[in-house]
């Protein structure tokens, strides 16, 4: 019986190649999309899993319980917490304190083997030796047990080691940091996988933090939030028990700030109790399920339609004594086999598509499908379920045929009371298609909105670098020299620039209640910061060399004025680090860090008009002169800072690589892909469906043609049913799509929804439907009348 059924299926596939190609392509594309999106979803939950002690690793974070604050959580914490408060807790097995080497947000540090060839390296960290007890590092060279024990030891990632020591054997070699400090390489580890929340490129011992930074009291420091702490809990220890014990550890300093432990499983997907990633992952999961449902519905419709060509087989089998159950099994089996063929094809399609898509997204957004066995199990189960569920209706319809009617090859009309299953499926199919297209538009438009958002500063003709230097003295000679070149328009120095987020402090303000404080970001900028970045003054003036008293003055941003409730901010006073400042100007808000983040209060004080170390030097150049300007700047800076390494980059390096924007770009591309697949699958589905329905109406068309009905009226008769269903689908799809817009985590930068997006998506489906209907109807109208009537 199985052999017979397989023969029949195989011979049908060979005979009706086009039809089965449509059936299988539809499902295979659906599966490929499902697989690709599933790998994306599964990846989101598989961050940091390379760590063997994954379940016991926690990061120390702070909850800043101030209602004025827009940012409520941070993982930049004080060192004293880990050196004092966590040390004696019985739940904790290991603690590792860390700090950036240089400023990872700005540009990192220069490492060199020969003091000449400098390698700008970001994401290096000071770390306790315990870091190797907590995280899993795969050492290629050296021994993790004592890699950071010796002062001035350095452990490199494979990538950094290969860059600096292309021949290998980095162990025992010397590395210069910023041409000033000599380190000994004590280990090389495999690069940390991309799907990690923390990816250090090199590590040096925490014990040399004081000698290198001159900060001797950091371990007692409770107010400086620039350290990172990871802990390893003992087996079965409770993190909430630790949380309770450290909840008020900072009460003497800031009673609104509460330390807590965040498990490693949440560090990527949900570090700060936000729904953003869940909504994105949920939406993508939902869409991938919808794609599969859409192609399954197509499969059901196509298989049911296909069944009408099997009347004889069914009639004969029933006549010969095959019971309903056996026929049902046969057709269910066919459905499952076809689904598995499609799923396997889909898997290979996905495997082929993933590198191209990663290329398109510019990252390893998608990982290989065959790598994760759990995903394969999920795909197997989903395939089986899809096969069974999709086969249910066609198998039921086919096995229920009356043998007499089947042998007469009569179309058996669906017996329904009210709503027919076919119409319901078609309506669902249209609804899903319209919904997915609209959602595709919404995501696309949201991303475009964020990409095109007015940054509020000049990001196109500004280049910057970070310089760590021992040099002192005025910066004016350098500035004057640069300005002699017509390509250079201005130059400034500041400790932070847009998209490099400064720290800050909780500040009170004039007019605020005595105990009321709000977190304000603090930057030191020189006179030329505002014009170099093309910032706009809303009120008052910029710092000026003509006003020596400006050293006790400050600028604030628009949001600060709003938060403080100052309508006339100029002339107001505020205390920062116990020093009084008078506001002389208000800068129009610009995007400080991320297009996704809301604006925060910002305070700018005047930096000394001299060389600053570990500061950002930015140069504004004439449009179209970047290359020339870059040469000039490199030359002038090399002469001015002969002993220091630096590397200028365009501001767009920061703005275009900003994480939130990158995530949105990726999301947008995924959605574009989803929308394209939706259109393909919808078209296939519509083709099959309309083929089936027009096939059924052939006789009606024939009789109407005999009676002299015009082609136009026949067209209306056949298409009106579909148009009606599309209109019903609109009622379902539009509110659902609006809901997606509503929950979209776009922060403060949600774009304004336009009705044309809904209309356009609907029209697109309508065009596909009408196009397919027209094709089928024209085909029906071209068939010889006698053939139609004879067939019936």
């Amino acid at each position, binding site marked *: *019986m199985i052999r*017979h059924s397989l*023969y*029949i299926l195989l*011979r*049908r596939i060979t*005979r009706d190649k086009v039809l089965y190609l449509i059936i299988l392509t539809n499902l295979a594309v659906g599966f490929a999309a499902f697989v690709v999106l599933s790998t994306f979803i599964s990846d989101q939950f598989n961050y940091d899993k390379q760590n063997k002690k994954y379940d016991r690793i926690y990061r120390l974070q702070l909850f800043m319980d101030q209602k004025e604050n827009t940012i409520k959580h941070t993982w930049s914490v004080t060192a004293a917490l880990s050196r004092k408060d966590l040390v004696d807790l019985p739940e904790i097995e290991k603690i590792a304190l860390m700090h950036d080497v240089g400023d990872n947000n700005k540009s990192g540090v220069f490492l060199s083997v020969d003091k000449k060839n400098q390698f700008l390296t970001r994401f290096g960290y000071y770390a306790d030796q315990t870091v190797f007890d907590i995280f899993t590092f795969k050492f290629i060279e050296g021994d993790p047990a004592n890699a950071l024990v010796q002062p001035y030891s350095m452990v490199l990632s494979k990538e950094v080691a290969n860059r600096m020591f292309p021949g290998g054997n980095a162990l025992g070699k010397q590395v210069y940091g910023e041409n000033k400090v000599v380190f000994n390489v004590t280990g090389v580890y495999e690069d940390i996988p991309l799907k990690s929340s923390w990816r250090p490129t090199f590590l040096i011992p925490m014990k040399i933090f004081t000698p290198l930074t001159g900060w001797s009291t950091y371990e007692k420091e409770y107010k400086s939030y620039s350290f990172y702490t990871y802990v390893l809990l003992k087996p079965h220890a409770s993190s909430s028990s630790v949380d309770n014990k450290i909840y008020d550890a900072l009460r003497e300093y800031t009673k609104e700030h509460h330390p807590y432990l965040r498990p490693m499983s949440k560090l990527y997907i949900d570090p700060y109790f936000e729904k953003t990633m869940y909504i994105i992952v949920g939406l993508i999961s939902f869409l991938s399920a919808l794609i599969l449902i859409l192609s399954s519905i197509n499969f059901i419709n196509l298989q049911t339609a296909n069944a009408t060509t099997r009347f*004889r*087989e069914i*009639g*004969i*089998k*029933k*006549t*010969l*004594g*095959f*019971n*309903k159950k*056996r026929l049902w099994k046969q057709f269910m089996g066919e459905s499952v086999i076809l689904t598995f063929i499609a799923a396997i094809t889909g898997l290979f399609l996905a495997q082929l598509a993933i590198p191209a898509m990663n290329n398109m997204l510019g990252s390893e957004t998608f990982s290989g499908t065959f790598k994760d066995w759990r995903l394969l199990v999920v795909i197997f189960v989903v395939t089986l379920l899809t096969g069974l569920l999709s086969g249910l209706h066609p198998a039921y319809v086919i096995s229920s045929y*009356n*043998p*007499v009617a089947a*042998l007469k090859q009569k179309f058996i009309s669906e017996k329904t009371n009210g709503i027919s299953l076919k119409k319901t499926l078609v309506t669902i199919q249209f609804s899903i298609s319209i919904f997915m297209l609209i959602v595709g538009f919404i995501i696309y438009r949201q991303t475009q909105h964020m990409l095109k958002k007015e940054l509020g500063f000049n990001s196109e003709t500004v280049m910057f670098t970070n310089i760590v230097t021992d040099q002192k003295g005025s910066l004016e000679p350098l500035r004057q020299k640069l300005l002699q070149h017509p390509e250079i328009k201005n130059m400034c120095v500041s400790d932070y620039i847009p998209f490099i987020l400064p720290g800050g402090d909780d500040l009170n303000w004039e007019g605020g209640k005595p105990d009321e404080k709000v977190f304000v970001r603090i930057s030191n900028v020189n006179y030329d910061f505002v014009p170099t970045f093309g910032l706009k003054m809303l009120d008052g003036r910029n710092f000026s060399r003509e006003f020596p008293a400006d050293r006790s003055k400050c600028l604030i941003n628009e949001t600060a004025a709003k938060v403080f409730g100052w309508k006339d901010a100029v002339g107001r006073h505020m205390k920062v680090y116990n020093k009084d400042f008078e506001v002389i100007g208000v800068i129009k808000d610009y995007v400080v860090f991320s297009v996704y983040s809301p604006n925060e209060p910002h305070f700018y004080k005047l930096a000394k008009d001299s060389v600053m170390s570990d500061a950002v030097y930015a140069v504004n150049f004439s449009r179209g002169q970047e290359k020339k300007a870059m040469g000039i700047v490199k030359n002038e800076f090399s002469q001015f800072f002969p002993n220091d390494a630096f590397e200028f980059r365009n501001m767009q390096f920061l703005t275009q690589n900003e994480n939130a924007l990158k995530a949105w770009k990726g999301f947008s591309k995924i959605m574009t892909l989803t929308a394209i697949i939706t259109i393909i699958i919808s078209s296939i589905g519509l083709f099959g469906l309309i083929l089936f329905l027009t096939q059924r109406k052939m006789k009606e068309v024939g009789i109407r043609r005999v009676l002299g009905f015009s082609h136009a009226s026949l067209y209306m008769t056949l298409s009106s049913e579909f148009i009606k269903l599309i209109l019903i689908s609109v009622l379902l799809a539009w509110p659902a799509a609006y809901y997606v817009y509503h929950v979209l985590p776009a922060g403060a930068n949600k774009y304004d929804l336009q009705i044309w997006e809904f209309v356009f998506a609907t029209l697109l489906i309508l065009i596909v439907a009408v196009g397919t209907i027209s094709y089928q109807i024209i085909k029906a109208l071209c068939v010889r009348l006698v053939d139609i009537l004879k067939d019936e």
Partner: protein
Amino acid sequence: MNLASMKKNQFMIRTVNLSKIFRTEMVETTALHEVNFKVSKGEFVAIMGPSGCGKSTLLNILGLLDNSDSGEYYFEGIDVSGFGEKQRTNLRKGNIGFIFQSFNLIDELTIFENVELPLLAMKVPMAERKVRVEEILDQMRIGHRRSHFPRQLSGGQQQRAAIARALITSPKLILADEPTGNLDSSNGEQVMQLLEEMNAAGTTIIMVTHSLNHAERAHRIVNLFDGNLVMERSEKVFESINRVV
């Protein structure tokens, strides 16, 4: 032995006031009206009548493909008129063979596989299936065509394959619905000869036909008109039954 002395259960088929009405929302069509019809074991009966008189409906009910609306139907003495689909399917299996005007061979199966189908329905083991199918194909003189598909055979060969399929289970009853309708006279003659041979071997045959020539080769001709049994011609009937019993 004469007909009067036959016991009830010697009838292969007996219907009592068998009626079938086709209903649509607006119209009722009486396909069969109180048909009383008997067929003895070993008999060869031809049913004739104009198009739409109910011949095929009667054949479908007799073949347990359809149910009557009223009346009784005894198959080998058992009242099957109230049988559900499952019971009808089980009874049909192996007991009744069907021959159709349009052969009704499955296009996707070879001649061997088509003939094998009824044995599959009866779950006969593969080795036995092979022997029996080979045997009957040779008997029907189409053994050399066993691996071909129906479309590769002539009409006569296709009908011989269909007859082989009907005979493979050695059924008690063969129902033939215009078996020669799609064949030329020479192939038609061959099919009629096969039917006569089957009947001679003891198989009961009921054949629907439009051809008086072919009908006259049966023991008895039953005429239907508008769902009513109107006339029987049974000159040869006693002679034939006496020969079989």
